[in-house]
């Protein structure tokens, strides 16, 4: 009887809270509408923030190295930005309209706290747009001398505005996740200090994670654009140009991607520290299956990136001497992928569960915990770095007297890093959990030290190296280009899936433990439903991106007859 009265009271309360609090959207509901608008807006925003990073780095390489092809590459990407900015603004506007009409009570709460930052946001968006127009349309006017450096400064400013805009938007969503201590359900929004709300526990970890993530995303989308143009190319010059562009996109995407897990780890740790319940829901509870999906998809990324490099070695004279090693590197990657994707709690039939004595397999259980997974991902990073290294070395013959010693030291660095990763991976099983968590830091440091040390040695080692022959840009099999598409699609999908994990751990709260979601959509969607929604968003985004690619080609055909023919440089490899 008490329960029934309680339920009735809760229902009455919910009805009172809901009155005027929520709007209705036909077909997919209010949450579905906001979900799609927010997700697609975010994907475009990541694109327009990631590509300028890419463009400004390429332009700088072009200026410093006096290599015009980098300058052309940078401009080609910036042209894509002009279209993408409009799409970002349109989806952002749509999101704003949906929020104000479908979630007015929530929107009032947020606007009361963040109004001043929202005005700054809008103002900066204007400034950013005009900087972009100046940057793009002034390209040919400010082409040489000091004016060129001024032009590059515009590109830098574009990145600065974009980063500030992203930081502001991040403060809103991180406030929803981790409102500062002292803000409770009883606190009036007007009483919440703006800076207090902005500088919440997860704000900076998200800022850094997204900053790196955007660079990865920008590189991957540019790689996909290059693949699209490569497959559609009519002349060997076009093929050579877009082959090279695809390589640069893949290089940027994967080299920045390598540090992304560390930023993600920091974010996860902050979430756990902010609220244990949230942390466990994310890592061990309801959302834990998303991490298996993530492991599978990141395995796809690693394999695709390596595959692209290995097939690319077919067009590099001298690369054949490394061919026998690739199968062993593939074996390491596959084993690590298997380990990483092994679930801790296994999906099993009743009979299988009975045979295992629970949801954990007696042996596979060992692979399901973080010690094994950290070890696997670190070895995958090391292997991918090794692929880059042999790709870079493929057509070079070092001429320095200490070449052999340097190679031995580099080999030792790899061996030591792998040894440290394996040692702490295994040792992690023999210590208590709190000690084990710290081991991942040693593993990461060993891998980073190896990457930095080996790279520094390599820069000096190949300086003045003899060429074994020029890279035959354009002589790339068509199937390799699908690896670039896979990278772009997988990155986009991952962004949506992991964004759902981050957002979903708020569960039935608009603002965690401050403002409750009392709408009919308050339940956290099941993983299948979430995956369908995210896949739909990915399709919408990639469909629009394909349209932008097509527009890019259209504009080019209207303006010029053909893209810049690639003057193939003797040593255009990674790190140059």
């Amino acid at each position, binding site marked *: 009887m008490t329960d029934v009265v309680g339920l009735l009271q809760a229902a009455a309360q919910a009805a009172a809270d809901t009155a005027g609090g929520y709007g209705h959207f036909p077909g997919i509901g209010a949450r579905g509408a906001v979900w799609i608008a927010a997700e697609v807006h975010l994907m475009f925003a990541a694109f327009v923030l990631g590509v300028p990073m890419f463009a400004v780095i390429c332009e700088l390489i072009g200026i410093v190295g006096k290599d015009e092809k980098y300058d052309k590459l940078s401009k080609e990407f910036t042209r894509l930005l002009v279209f993408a900015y409009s799409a970002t603004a349109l989806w952002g506007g749509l999101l704003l309209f949906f929020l104000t009409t479908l979630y007015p009570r929530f929107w009032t709460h947020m606007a009361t706290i963040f109004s001043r930052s929202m005005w700054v946001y809008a103002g900066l968006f204007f400034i950013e747009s005009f900087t972009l127009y100046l940057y793009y349309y002034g390209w040919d006017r400010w082409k040489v001398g000091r004016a060129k450096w001024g032009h590059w400064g515009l590109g830098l400013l574009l990145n600065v505005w974009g980063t500030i805009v992203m930081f502001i938007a991040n403060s809103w969503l991180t406030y929803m996740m981790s409102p*500062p*201590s*002292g*803000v409770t359900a009883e606190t009036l929004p007007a009483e919440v200090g703006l800076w207090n709300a902005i500088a919440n526990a997860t704000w900076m970890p998200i800022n850094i994670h997204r900053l790196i993530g955007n660079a990865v995303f920008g590189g991957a989308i540019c790689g996909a654009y290059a693949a699209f143009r490569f497959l559609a190319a009519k002349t060997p010059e076009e093929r050579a140009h877009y082959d090279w562009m695809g390589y640069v996109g893949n290089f940027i995407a994967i080299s920045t991607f390598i540090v992304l897990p560390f930023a993600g780890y920091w974010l996860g740790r*902050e979430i756990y*520290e902010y*609220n*244990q*319940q*949230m942390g*466990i*829901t994310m*890592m*061990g*509870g*309801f959302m834990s*299956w998303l991490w298996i999906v993530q492991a*599978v998809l990141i*395995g796809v990324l690693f*394999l695709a990136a390596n595959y692209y490099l290995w*097939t690319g070695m*077919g067009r590099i004279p001298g690369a054949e001497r490394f*061919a026998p090693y690739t199968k062993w590197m*593939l074996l390491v*990657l*596959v084993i690590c*992928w*298997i380990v990483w*994707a*092994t*679930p*801790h*709690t*296994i*999906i*099993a*039939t009743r009979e*299988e569960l*009975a*045979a*295992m*004595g*629970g*949801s*954990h*397999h*007696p*042996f*596979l*259980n*060992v692979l399901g*915990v973080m010690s094994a997974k950290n070890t696997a991902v670190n070895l995958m990073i090391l292997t991918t770095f090794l692929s880059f290294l042999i790709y870079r070395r493929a057509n070079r013959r070092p001429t320095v007297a200490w070449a052999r010693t340097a190679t031995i030291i580099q080999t030792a660095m790899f061996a030591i890093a792998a040894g440290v990763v394996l040692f702490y991976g295994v040792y992690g099983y023999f210590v*208590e*959990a*709190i000690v084990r968590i710290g081991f991942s830091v040693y593993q990461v440091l060993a891998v980073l030290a190896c990457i930095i040390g080996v790279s520094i040695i390599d820069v000096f080692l190949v300086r003045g190296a003899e060429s074994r022959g020029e890279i035959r840009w354009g002589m790339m*099999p068509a*199937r390799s280009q699908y690896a670039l598409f896979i990278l772009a699609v997988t990155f986009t999908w991952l962004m949506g899936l992991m964004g759902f994990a981050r957002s979903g751990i708020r*569960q039935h709260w608009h603002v965690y433990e401050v403002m409750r979601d009392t709408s009919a959509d308050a339940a*956290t969607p099941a*993983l299948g439903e979430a995956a369908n929604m995210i896949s739909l968003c990915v399709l919408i985004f990639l469909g629009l991106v394909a349209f932008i690619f097509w527009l890019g080609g259209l504009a080019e055909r209207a303006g010029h007859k053909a893209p810049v023919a690639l003057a193939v440089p003797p040593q255009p490899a990674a790190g140059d």
Partner: protein
Amino acid sequence: MSRVGAWVRHPFWQAVLLLILAYLLFKFGIALLPPLLGMHSAPVPTSVVVQYMLIALVGVLIHVSSDETRWRRFKEPIHDTMVDADKRWVRLAVLILVPLLIGWVTYDQTRPKVEAPITLRSIHPAPPSQITFRGKTIQLTGLENPLRHRGSLTEHIETGKRIYYQNCLACHGDRLDGQGHFAHGFSPTPLSFADQGTIAQLTESFVFWRVAKGGPGLPREGAPWSSAMPVWEDYLTEDEIWAVIIYLYEQSGWKPRTWEESTGGGEH
């Protein structure tokens, strides 16, 4: 013999052979490993075998297609089967058998079955930051086992042991391995505390919450939990639950997870 040698060296048959070996390893080989270490073993569940085989398939396809010559040779038997006039019977067989196989697998996946459907389960429910134990509010975040700083540890272990044997043994078993007398009557089966993935990963406050609130106290997210664990706060005192937790860790040999220094600082 030379013909067999040529087959073994051919990329297509190498790929087939590799996939067969991978299947045998995943399906049967893994189950042979635990006994070598003196551990209990079990067959690898089908869902894991399928997942591993997909990864192996991707690996094999990457291997055969990452080199132009190897890729061309790999495609030869497929091309010949689909095109050559003298292979029309093989072609016909493939074109009939493959759709039939796919059809059978689809039918088998979707046909009504007697056994309960397989569901995703999450094993670690997220604990609340505080609970009410017999009317008393207990803050779980940062909470340590009070008995570790009070009285004699030996006595607490003895108390915990008595309570365990009186209340927990029937399900969680004599060896704490979840193989008690009643264990096979439950689905999911009771947790094994000997498993490194259970109490070894948890703080004592988490275990206290689980023991005190049992199945009915599990959070709504991630439901249905299907847990038969009773609500032990109705039968045991706070100290009795803490004592049994000490016994669990002492007997299993695991150390409880400890709190980080700054944990809870950011919570509101």
